[in-house]
């Protein structure tokens, strides 16, 4: 008995450490492909460390004689989540079929189980909530510090050159494991003064902060220690300034709207009646002062928000409207069960190809619009009415249960509702639920909102506890090993094979490069393989028809600007000058001056113009010149 208690205490300490590692290490772990941080290896770490955490919590509970995963018992939000998880698998089976949805379902299940385990662990002793929140504060602090360093152009790129390269060029393990790579990655945005932290994109950072700031601010307010309040203030005030400086309209709108709604839910709707506020001179003054403060803050922090607001309906909004329309059309084709996880990307491309005979808009579809940029709508398209309804049940139940959660102070309840609402609004214009770091923060906030004093007392007889622990942990170990082996490991391998394929291609060993490329493609279609390896290989070999055929195959699962560049090369070589020029121009329009392929495309267009001049092809020349004068790309 005493031994089991001793073991339980030791496990509790270990669980706390693993949880902090889970909260801090993956988000701060960097990788070289800056603009695609939601890919490997952050997810690799979240899933892998996540299973260690899930296993340890299960072991601790079993040894204490408590049932597994019973935290949040009688919670409708929890039952809804279990139903949603089951539907994920059913929907993947019914939807677009490939290995990817299964891998995706494993990842989502892992995240949900991490959330359940946090709930189990915090409900066992509610004071543990503080440790989780402290971990989140540290994380926000690190992201803000890095963002500011990038904003003030700290010379990370220069530092990267002074640190010896270890992993970046070996391909033995995914990028980002060594100081050189970290400096290299941070150096990329600092060259442009971008506020991205390790999230790789201003919008991702803004959504992440919009989720965590309300929870942490309200936690700071309810803290008794003045020192704690000051320490939190030192992190949260700069974090808020960074959020304003990102100029992300969706996140700021989410914070404002959700703040009002959450306040109404917690303190009553009469308190947030804007008409009453406006009628009152103090209220009117407050509203005007808030607006002035926001404008002033925006101006002080670079004026990005004001610039974006002054543009009105810009390319970003127009692009989103277009993709939402497509998404609704796709949903109409699979209304009940949806297209399955990850199905949107595949179907959207096919749909666009159908509308545009040249197939050119697939650049938009595949790169910018691989996601719907509206997570609720994407849930509807991929999981159908059933999945969407289950999500609604979860959201409504969670809001109701947080409102009734006696273990939270009203301010804390407000903070949780505000945070989740803000992210929900922001997710209507982006895809924060698809960014691993933000998704991890979501499950943490979800679990903290539900945690309350309802933990059942231990009732498994002491003698049976080791046996129960053995069976439970055995099953969980099988799940963890399978998830890592079938979900994470293929992503890791795809990165390695992609590197090797590139090396072979650079050595003009085209045949071998193709074999290894196909291997990478097989291990992970979306994430690991770089589709252009094989296309550039084939262009080098002048196998143009094969390029076009391969492009169509690859376009179904994802291809970037480089793929389109090689496609354009093949089109021109096979005499399809108009299509080639159009493709080059799309690359230039949508990826702009900074994109290497856009630069290469410009040079190719100049070469084509020279060729046409020599051939005295006036019509062709007109096309090139006209297309070059088209307006620039919309801002991302």
């Amino acid at each position, binding site marked *: 008995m005493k031994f089991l208690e001793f073991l339980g205490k030791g496990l509790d300490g270990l669980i706390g450490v693993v949880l902090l590692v889970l909260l801090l290490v993956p988000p701060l772990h960097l990788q070289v492909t800056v603009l695609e941080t939601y890919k490997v290896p952050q997810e690799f770490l979240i899933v892998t460390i996540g299973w260690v955490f899930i296993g340890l919590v299960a072991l601790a509970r079993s040894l204490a004689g408590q049932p597994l*995963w019973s935290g949040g018992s009688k919670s409708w939000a929890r039952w809804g989540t279990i139903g949603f998880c089951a539907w994920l698998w059913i929907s993947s089976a019914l939807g677009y079929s490939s290995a990817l949805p299964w891998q995706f379902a494993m990842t989502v299940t892992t995240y949900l189980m991490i959330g359940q385990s946090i709930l189990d662990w915090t409900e066992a002793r509610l004071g543990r909530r503080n440790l989780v929140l402290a971990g989140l504060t540290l994380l926000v602090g690190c992201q803000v510090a890095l963002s500011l360093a990038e904003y003030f152009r700290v010379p990370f790129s220069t530092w990267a050159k002074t640190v010896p390269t270890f992993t970046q060029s070996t*391909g033995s393990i995914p990028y980002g494991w060594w100081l050189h790579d970290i400096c290299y990655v941070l150096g990329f945005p600092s060259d442009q003064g971008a506020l991205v932290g390790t999230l790789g994109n201003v919008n991702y950072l803004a959504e992440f902060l919009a989720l965590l700031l309300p929870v942490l601010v309200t936690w700071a307010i309810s803290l008794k220690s003045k020192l704690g309040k000051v320490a939190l203030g030192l992190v949260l005030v700069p974090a808020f300034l960074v959020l304003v400086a990102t100029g992300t309209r969706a996140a700021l709108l989410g914070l404002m709207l959700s703040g009002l709604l959450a306040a109404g839910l917690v303190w009553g709707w009469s308190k947030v009646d804007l008409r009453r506020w406006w009628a009152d001179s103090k209220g009117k003054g407050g509203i005007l002062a808030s607006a002035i403060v926001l404008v002033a803050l925006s101006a002080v922090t670079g004026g990005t928000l004001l610039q974006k607001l002054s543009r009105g309906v810009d390319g970003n909004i127009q692009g989103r409207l277009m993709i939402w329309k497509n998404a609704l059309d796709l949903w109409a084709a699979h209304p009940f069960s949806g297209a399955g996880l990850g199905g949107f990307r595949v179907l959207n491309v096919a749909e666009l190809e159908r509308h545009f005979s040249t197939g050119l808009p697939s650049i938009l579809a595949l790169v910018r619009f691989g996601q719907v940029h509206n997570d609720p709508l994407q849930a509807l398209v991929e999981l159908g009415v059933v999945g969407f309804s289950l999500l609604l049940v979860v959201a409504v139940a969670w809001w109701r249960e947080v409102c009734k959660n006696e273990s939270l102070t009203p301010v804390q309840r407000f903070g949780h509702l505000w945070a989740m609402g803000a992210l929900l609004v922001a997710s209507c214009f982006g895809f924060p639920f698809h960014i691993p770091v933000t998704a991890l923060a979501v499950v943490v906030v979800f679990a903290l909102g539900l945690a309350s004093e309802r933990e059942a007392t231990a009732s*498994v007889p002491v003698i049976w506890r080791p046996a129960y622990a053995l069976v439970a942990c055995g099953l969980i170990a099988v799940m963890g090993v399978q998830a890592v082996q079938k979900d994470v490991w293929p992503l890791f391998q795809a990165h390695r094979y992609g*590197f090797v394929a590139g090396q072979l291609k650079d050595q003009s060993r085209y045949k071998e490069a193709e074999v290894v490329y196909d291997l990478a493609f097989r291990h992970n279609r979306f994430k690991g393989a770089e589709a252009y390896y094989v296309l550039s290989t084939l262009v080098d070999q002048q196998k143009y028809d094969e390029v076009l055929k391969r492009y169509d195959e690859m376009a179904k699962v994802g291809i970037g600007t480089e793929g389109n560049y090689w496609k354009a090369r093949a089109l021109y070589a096979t005499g399809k000058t108009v299509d080639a020029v159009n493709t080059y121009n799309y690359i230039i329009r949508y990826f702009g001056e900074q994109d290497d392929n856009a630069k290469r495309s410009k040079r190719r267009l100049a070469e084509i113009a020279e060729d046409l001049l020599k051939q005295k092809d006036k019509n062709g020349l007109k096309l090139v010149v006209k297309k070059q004068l088209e307006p620039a790309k919309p801002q991302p």
Partner: protein
Amino acid sequence: MEMVLIKYVAPLLIAGSLAAVFTAMPGVQPASPDELAEVAVGYIKAKQESFGKDALREALAKEPGNHRANYVAGMLALQEERFPEAASHLKAAYEAKPDDRDALLSYGVACQRLNDYGAARAAYEAVRKAEPNNAKAAYNLGMLAIETLQYSVAKGCLEDYLRLQPDAPDKAFVSGKLNELSALLKKRKAV
């Protein structure tokens, strides 16, 4: 009793079902030995020999007699002057694909470096018989003949080499060797 069942057995059943689903889920088809051999080539070209060796080890563990993996492993061993290993891999590669003259020729080189002149000669001659125009085989046979003091054979082979490859980059070196051989043969006749 019913409550105990629901509370404690139901989570185990759920975990068991999930574990079964995870286990039954289709995994990625692993790389074949041939593909692993190409991966090894990529690593070797990127000067990451240790990873290349890992890939080859994996390929050969899956299929010990795989032609491509044995060939790449043999060539790497030859490059690193691990001759016994090179000989055994290249022999396995040749046995797996008897029309692979490159493997046979390289097997001969490994044997020659191990002082197994009989095996080396047999390998070179087999290549020459199958491909009379193989310049490398003529060259290797010529050098082997010098090593075994068969100067007239050596002279004939090296002459064949220059005939088959008139623009050989080592033409000057081989011509020098031929002059030396002619002088030696003259001396020998005089003696």
